[in-house]
C-alpha cells in the first residue's frame, strides 16, 4: 500500500519534471528557432548600406571595333566607320572586302544593338559577307576592340527582309543586353534597278560578358 503511494508520488514527480523539461525545451526551441530562422533567412541586426555594382549603370565605352572575325565562314576583316548620307540612309562600306561599323550607333559589347554592314558582292564577284547566310544559331562572332578587348557574340538567328519593309525597330531598337546585327544584301536581284531587293540581317547576342554574374549555363 505504502509502496503504491510512493510509486504514485514518484510518478507525479516524474511527470511534473518531464512537463517542466518539455516546457523548458519548448521555450528554448522557440528561442532557438527564432534565432535560427533569422540566421537561416540571412537577416541582419539593422539596416545595411546598399552596395551598388558598376555594371548596374555602365558608362558608354569609348573604344571602337577594329576587326571582325567569323571563323565558321572564314571572315577576318578590318572595320571602317560607316556614316549616314544627307537623307539619313546608312551608307554601306567603301570597299567590298571590308565590313563597316555604324559609328553613331552602339559600341559592340555595350548594352544596345551594334550594327556592322558588309557587301554580299560587287558587280564583279563575291565580297566580305558572301557567306553570311550560312551562319547558324550558336556560331561565334568575334570583334577585336581598340582597347585590346575581344568581344564575343553568339548568333541567335537571321532574317531575310524586303528592303522596302526594312525592320528598323528590330535592327536598331533598344535592347536590354549587348547585341550585334550583321547586315548585307540578299537575293533576289533586280536587274533593272541593279540592286538586290532584300537585306539579310543576322542577330547575335553577347556571349562572354565582362562583368556579368557567375553564369552557370547548365544545358
Amino acid at each position, binding site marked *: 500500500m505504502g509502496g503504491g503511494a510512493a510509486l504514485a508520488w514518484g510518478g507525479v514527480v516524474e511527470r511534473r519534471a518531464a512537463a517542466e523539461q518539455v516546457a523548458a525545451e519548448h521555450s528554448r526551441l522557440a528561442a532557438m528557432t527564432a534565432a535560427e530562422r533569422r540566421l537561416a*533567412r540571412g537577416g541582419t541586426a539593422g539596416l545595411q548600406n546598399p552596395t551598388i555594382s558598376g555594371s548596374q549603370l555602365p558608362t558608354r565605352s569609348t573604344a571602337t571595333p577594329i576587326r571582325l572575325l567569323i571563323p565558321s565562314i572564314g571572315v577576318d576583316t578590318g572595320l571602317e566607320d560607316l556614316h549616314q548620307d544627307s537623307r539619313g540612309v546608312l551608307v554601306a562600306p567603301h570597299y567590298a572586302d571590308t565590313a563597316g561599323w555604324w559609328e553613331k550607333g552602339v559600341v559592340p559589347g555595350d548594352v544596345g544593338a551594334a550594327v556592322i554592314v558588309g557587301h554580299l558582292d560587287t558587280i564583279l564577284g563575291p565580297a566580305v559577307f558572301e557567306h553570311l547566310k550560312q551562319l547558324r544559331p550558336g556560331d561565334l562572332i568575334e570583334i577585336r576592340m581598340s582597347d585590346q578587348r575581344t568581344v564575343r557574340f553568339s548568333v541567335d538567328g537571321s532574317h531575310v527582309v524586303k528592303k522596302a519593309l526594312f525592320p528598323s525597330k528590330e535592327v536598331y531598337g*533598344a535592347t536590354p543586353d549587348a547585341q550585334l546585327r550583321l547586315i548585307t544584301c540578299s537575293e533576289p*536581284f533586280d536587274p533593272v534597278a541593279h540592286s538586290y531587293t532584300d537585306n539579310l540581317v543576322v542577330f547575335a547576342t553577347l556571349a562572354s560578358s565582362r562583368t556579368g554574374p557567375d553564369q552557370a549555363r547548365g544545358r
Partner: protein
Amino acid sequence: MKRIARPLLAALAVALVALALPAAPASAASRDGWLRLAHMSPDTSAVNITLSSLSGDVTLFRMQNVGYGAVSEYMKLPQGTYAIAMVPAGTNDPNATPVVSGSVQVKAGVAETLAAIGKNAALKTTVFTDDLASVPGGDARVRIVQASVTHPTVDVTAGSTTVATGAPFGDVSKYVTVKAGSTSIDLKAGSKDRTVTQQFSAGSSHTLFVIDDAKGDLTISPALDSAAATQVPVGSLAAGGGGLADGTSNVALLLAAIAAAGGFGAMGMMARRRGEVRAS
C-alpha cells in the same frame, strides 16, 4: 540517251532548287525573353540566387553573393516558367532554407525584373516589366520602384520632371522622359529630403530603386533597363552589286569587260570601290 538525260536533268534541277532555297529564317531570338534579379531588402545579408528549370533538375544561372542594393545583368532565357531561390550567401547546405523561393514566367521578347523587397521578416518578391521602347534624340527615360521600408510614401523628381508622387511601398512608377546627362534626383518623404546625382545616357531607359541606407535615409540603386543608338538610320542597306546574282551576268560582264579594257588599275578600282552601278 534523251530518256536518261531528262530524269537526270530533272533530278539535278530539283537538287539545285533545294540548294538555292534560303534556309528557313531562324527567327531571331523570338522565343527568348530577359530576366534580371534585384536584392532590395535592407536587413537581409548577401544571397546566392539560383534560377532553374521548374522541375528543379537543371540549374540555368547561379549568382553568388548578391548583396543588398544589387541588380543583376539580364539573363536571356527561352520563354517559359522558371524556379527561383535565394539562400543566404555562405550557406553551403544545398537544402538551406531559402530567403525567397518561387516561380517566374519569362515571356518572349519581354524584359522583366524580379525584385526581393521588404524587411527580412516580411520579405516578398515583385515582378515588373522593363522598358524596351525607343527614346528620341538626346533624351532618356526613367522610373522608380519604391522599395523603402522606412518611408511609407515617397515623392521623386528628376531635374524638374516629376517621376512619382506619394508612391507607396512596392509601387513601380511609369517611365518619364528626361534630358540625358547628369541629373539631380530629389527624394522626398514627409519632411525628409535627399538629393542624389545620377547620370543618364541618351537613348536609354533606367530604373531607380528607392531604398534605405544604414541610417534609414532615402537613397537609390540605379539600373540600366535598355539602350539604343540615339539616331536610327533611314531604311535599308545597299550592300551588293549583283556579281553573285543570276540574270545580271550581261551587265556585270559588260562592265567587267569595260573595266578590263580600261586596264588592271581600273578593274582593281571597280572591284574594290563601291561602284556607281549599285542602285538604291
